[in-house]
């Protein structure tokens, strides 16, 4: 499994033709205490860079974008019940949704972990 990152502080775990998407620990530290997460509907087709989910802290709402195009095949219902998971385990239990990858060539524009670390440094 490969993990890739976007400049908007999202991560993608690639497993065959499925990408699991979440926000990075850096993103959650910038957001602050998360109190609400709105997830896309299963079956929705997302275009790359389209607003896919919303994460709200006490103070502000932020969009989570589809880092690549694809169809939503699963969402993390646990996040709706416990939004604070985003703060406690951004890179793990707090995954947002899974996409069936539409075009693997879109992965080419994403960063690996070293590049992302340099991006946030």
């Amino acid at each position, binding site marked *: 499994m490969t993990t890739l990152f976007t400049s908007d502080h999202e991560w993608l775990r690639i497993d065959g033709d499925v990408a699991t998407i979440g926000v990075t620990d850096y993103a959650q530290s910038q957001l602050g205490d998360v*109190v*609400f997460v709105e997830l896309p509907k299963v079956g929705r087709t997302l275009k790359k860079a389209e607003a896919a989910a919303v994460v709200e802290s006490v103070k*502000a709402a932020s969009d989570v974008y589809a880092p690549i195009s694809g169809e939503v095949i699963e969402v993390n219902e646990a996040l709706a019940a416990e939004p604070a998971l985003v703060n406690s385990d951004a890179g793990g239990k707090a995954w947002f949704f899974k996409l069936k990858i539409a075009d693997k060539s879109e992965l080419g524009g994403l960063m690996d972990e070293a590049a992302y670390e340099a991006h946030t440094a």
Partner: protein
Amino acid sequence: MLVRDESPLKRTPLHALHVARGGKMVPFAGYEMPVQYPAGVLKEHLHTRSAAGLFDVSHMGQLALQAKSGKFEDAALALERLVPQDIVAVPPGRQRYAQFTKDDGGILDDLMVANFGDHLFLVVNAACKTEDEAHLRAHLSETCVIDSLSQRALIALQGPKAESALAKLCAGVSAMRFMDSGPRQVAGFDCFVSRSGYTGEDGFEISVPAEHAEALVTALLDNADVLPIGLGARDSLRLEAGLCLYGHDIDTTTTPVEGALEWSVQKSRRAGGARAGGFPGAEKILSQFEKGASRRRVGLRAQGRAPVREGAPLFVDSASSEAIGKVTSGGFGPSLNTPLAMGYLPTALAENGTQVFAEVRGQRLPLQVAAMPFVPNTYKR
């Protein structure tokens, strides 16, 4: 990066302390201010409700207004030309909430006015302080001297442990009641202390000479009950307390009556009172006292989990196309663990329990008009 203003941001006398304590500094009303500390907005909010929170509000404006005659009553009568409040009747050592109104009844700013014996002490909003001072000078300079107390810092200490924390540094604070205000020695410094605040909690605001601000705050923070609190939690605390944020919940387009601030206009300034009218916008505002206003500021509670933010349009039902009002403040109330908002609705729909809908990201979310404060206040009256 979005550059909003060419002028450099100002810093309060506590800037170095904020940075040393890990404050996340953001631009606010022309100042670099801490929006939160490492504890985060949620913990800071809850700590203020359970113990004590310390806020730097030095960006706010502090002014002294004294009549050239030296008489308090002359200063009070002068200020009454600009506000719909009874200032003459404020007893020595007490303060009162007021608004500067304009000719069409709108609100230029809201402020606190204290009777300091021979003069008035005013605290105004940071974003309005330059205009407020100019407004005072333009209208009152003939009879009054206006001093900008720009060399003073202002801190707020709020929460159930505020009294015990301040009592260690200031004799006599326990005897103060809500809205008492006057000069006092705190940690040996010449301060002005009022028992008031912007959180709904019991607490104090302390005006201190800028050069002593860091020493005073350090002494207060030496108490384990006291944590520094940023602007993020200040906003969620005041929202739970149902308190207006100027520029959002009240502004130049809203009157005190529309803003549900009738309680702040004493009978002496209303029709039939001893000094009825005589303030900017009196005709409109007093007419609204008689006949009511067409819209009103209300509290709103969401039925779901999604916060409804400032600017969200309000609708009478889930399908109608015409907005009937809008949300002016909205977010999450950590003490109640639920979204909270306030906004304006037609007066006919302003009754508690009325259901309306806010549009958020294309969806209509049900909200209920609810009494404020959302969290009961704990003032020591």
